[in-house]
């Protein structure tokens, strides 16, 4: 099939220029499988050993700042609809009690099909606002007693760079991008996706055993200063725009056809590429400390 040469008008990619990465000692954390309490739904988490990475000033390529990342666990896959549905549909409650759930704390009913018919079971959650993603993580933390949240942009990028095999580099060099073949092997992008997401973990994992950080659904992250962005590019982006420094800030077009005013705070009517992955931050948990 011939694809027109286009770049999705929904995404404005701004690259972080990455200089180097310094992983810390091997993580003491172990991989584990979480079960959403009261359900048979599970998902896997992978430890990411803390470390630091440096980011360049785009003008002179000098080190602009060095970001330190602590040990965390990161979701092995993007959060899937099975996981998200437990929360958004209230499946953690008995059917008779679902309608009594506080409607302020759970997503409103979406108008239309937020999975856009790409697939549901085993597919990444899509069309969600950053608010919805953060509220999901908050709910999951209350359910499990663990500290789940969205990754910061620094955590996400650090894990991404580490995962694509960025060797420990201590000198100031610009890390080479993955070549196209490598990206094709690990990422669903415009050239191989047929304009749809694919089941999570259907490409090869990165070297940490984490899937789909690049491509497939874009993934919400939050900067230290509160700014939010979708990270890593999505299936709608050209392969050259799929990399660990890719970030897209929410544009007006992402919910422009939500026909209602006020627009939904939970769903993005025109962003079937906005998904997320959660991390667990043990530093914020008394029991782990």
């Amino acid at each position, binding site marked *: 099939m011939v694809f027109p040469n*286009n770049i999705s008008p*929904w995404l404005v990619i701004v690259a972080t220029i990455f200089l180097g990465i310094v992983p810390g000692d091997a993580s003491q954390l172990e991989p584990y499988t979480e079960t959403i309490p009261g359900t048979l739904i599970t998902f896997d988490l992978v430890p990411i050993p803390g470390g630091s990475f440096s980011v360049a000033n785009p003008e002179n390529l000098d080190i602009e700042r060095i970001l330190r990342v602590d040990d965390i666990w990161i979701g092995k896959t993007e959060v899937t609809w099975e996981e998200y549905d437990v929360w958004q549909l209230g499946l953690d409650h008995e059917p008779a009690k679902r309608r009594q759930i506080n409607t302020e704390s759970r997503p*409103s*009913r979406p*108008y239309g*099909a937020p999975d856009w018919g790409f697939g549901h079971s085993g597919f990444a959650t899509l069309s969600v606002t950053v608010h919805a993603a953060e509220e999901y993580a908050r709910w999951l933390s209350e359910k499990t007693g663990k500290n789940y949240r969205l990754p910061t942009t620094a955590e996400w990028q650090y894990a991404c760079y580490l995962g694509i095999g960025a060797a420990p580099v201590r000198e100031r060099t610009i890390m080479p991008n993955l070549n196209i073949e490598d990206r094709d092997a690990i990422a669903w992008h415009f050239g191989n996706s047929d304009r749809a997401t694919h089941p999570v973990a259907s490409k090869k994992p990165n070297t940490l055993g984490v899937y789909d950080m690049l491509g497939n659904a874009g993934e919400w992250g939050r900067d230290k200063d509160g700014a939010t962005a979708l990270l890593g590019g999505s299936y709608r982006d050209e392969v050259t725009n799929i990399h660990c420094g890719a970030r897209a800030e929410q544009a007006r*077009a992402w919910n*422009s056809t939500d026909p*209602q*005013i006020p627009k939904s705070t939970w769903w993005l009517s025109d962003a079937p590429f906005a998904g997320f992955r959660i991390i667990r931050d043990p530093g914020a948990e008394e029991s782990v400390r």
Partner: protein
Amino acid sequence: MENSRITRRDAIKTTAAVTAGIVSNPRFAFAGGQRATMRVGVIGCGGRGTGAAANCVESSEGVQIVSMGDLFANRLASSRQQLAEQLGTAFKVTNDTAFTGYDAFESVLATDIDMVILATPPAFRPQHLRAAIDAGKNIFMEKPIAVDPMGVRLVIEASEIAKEKGLAIVSGTQRRHQAPYLEAMKRIHDGAIGDVVAAQVFWNQGGLWNRERQPGWTDMEWQARNWLYFTWLSGDHIVEQHIHNIDVANWAMQGHPTKAVGVGGRQVRVEPEFGHIFDHFAIEFEYESGGRVMSMCRQINGTANHVGEHIVGTRGTADPERWIRGQQAWQWGDTEYVNPYVQEHTDLIASIRAGTPLNEGRRVAESTLTAIMGREAAYTGQEITWDEILNAEMSLVPDAFHFGPMPVPDVAVPGITTLDRNI
């Protein structure tokens, strides 16, 4: 509100007759010269009416929202606040041009406006459309445009009068103004997939919002605030929501079907707060050409989603929002992003200003009637023909509205429910 009784009961049975005595004047709305500013009123200020008002202002230069009306004071107030914040100086509504109650539409139409947005629940649309045409206003009206055959006939009649008066009517079936659909349909009608022989169209999703009944609400207030769940107000979800996809099927087939057979039921969403509508339908429509359209819609939580259309031709297939496959393959390239909810207003206002008013009234009336025909095929369990549904005596909307008792109709039972239902 006696005039509504007269209006509904006077509905003509066929669509040829047009009220006598109309003077044809293509510039009727702008007699004495066009104004630079398009002054717009809004009737029905829920989420969609508010959204449509904002889309309208965004669509074209020189548009102002000058009057508003809603059945409920709280809905009017929140809509006013949101539009005031969003539209800035284009929002000119004052306390003197904001109205509540059943008669609010008459008050809005009496203000100095060139165009009106009709966005109440569809039960009221035929009456509001006719009043707006009589008042000489151009129209943007949300889909669907009626809930029963009598309402459809009223809209067809009113649309003919609008044509005579040179007034524009655009309806909220925004796929008709959406670039990929327009391009795909042009190619399909130019033969890109051969003869169109079939289509499958879907709107399968979870449930929608529901407002808990508050102490002190009468039956009528509770139903009006939860209008989705009452056939007399919404037409049921096959009419209210799935009309978008059914309209695309008619577009591909270049006409309306001649008969329908279908199934449907109320299987999961059975609690009283969900009124009496069904939660799923599956209908087969047959067209003059022999073409067949399979239509499916569902509102059940936790089930597979699918909203879209698939068109089958003798030499290819199409998803008219995305691609054509076959020897004349094509894919929508996303080269320019245009919000179809804005574009429909752009096209409407441009047509008014050019003196060549669009009139989508009959087309959307036929799509609405197609959806009603599907609903009735499922409700009654019978094969329903176009002529039968077009001329059916069914009337679901009360002749007069007042806040008071309003029994919930029985859930339709295939094999027992009949077409000649009247409230």
